């Protein structure tokens, strides 16, 4: 499997989601490393169907599960974190984020639309990402905070 982040975003073209996590930081100019794509999707019936189709296209299965279970609508209806491996790399499919269980609608006001060679993607604003990571307080989040904060300042 060769990581192909563009393929993941293209497969999700018809899905309502917000790019969050490390990749969201990178595309806004923060030079950090990350190993997976994190998306927060809208929990709504038609969107869940589109997401299921996209995950099928990506051949997504639950990561670290030897049964290689594919995701179904019933999985996607929950607010939990679905950690998957796809043919294009690791993809974390999130129904909510942080301990507050923020859902798509909560985060939408803090997202900006960004263009990726003609593909428009909603991306969690870097300032909000910093705030959420600080609240999360996990070592891996705190480790990148100085870089994220410096990037916010440099962008002005």
């Amino acid at each position, binding site marked *: 499997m*060769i990581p192909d982040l563009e393929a993941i975003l293209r497969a999700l073209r018809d899905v309502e989601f917000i790019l969050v996590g490390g990749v969201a930081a990178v595309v806004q*100019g923060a030079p950090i*490393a*990350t190993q997976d794509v994190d998306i927060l999707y809208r929990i709504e019936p038609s969107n869940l169907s589109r997401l299921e189709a996209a995950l099928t296209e990506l051949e997504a299965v639950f990561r670290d599960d030897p049964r290689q279970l594919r995701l179904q609508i019933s999985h996607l209806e929950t607010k939990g974190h679905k950690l998957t491996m796809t043919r294009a790399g690791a993809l974390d499919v999130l129904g909510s984020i942080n301990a507050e269980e923020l859902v798509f609608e909560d985060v939408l006001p803090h997202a900006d639309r960004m263009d990726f*060679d003609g593909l428009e993607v909603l991306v969690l604003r870097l300032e909000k990402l910093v705030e959420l990571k600080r609240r999360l307080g996990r070592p891996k989040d705190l480790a990148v905070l100085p870089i994220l904060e410096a990037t916010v300042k440099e962008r002005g």
Partner: protein
Amino acid sequence: MWGLGRWAGDECTPPGVVVTSLPMAEERSETSDDGGSRSLVDEAGVDLTLIRAYLALTPIERLRALQNMMRAIGKFRPMVRSK
């Protein structure tokens, strides 16, 4: 973390990435009191040179840079067991 300055302009530049405004060495260093040079870092010790280089890229170029890094270091999570 990957040092943009190490691959920009050489054979490691990711496909499709055009580095347009990577600072030159003279621009990214400051002269110290003893005449030497030091990196441009902020009060938290973060190297701003790398951040400025990333900010000079477009979003798709940043995405491709990350993707290329994932491929290069080979530390992407391994595929789950095959059937």
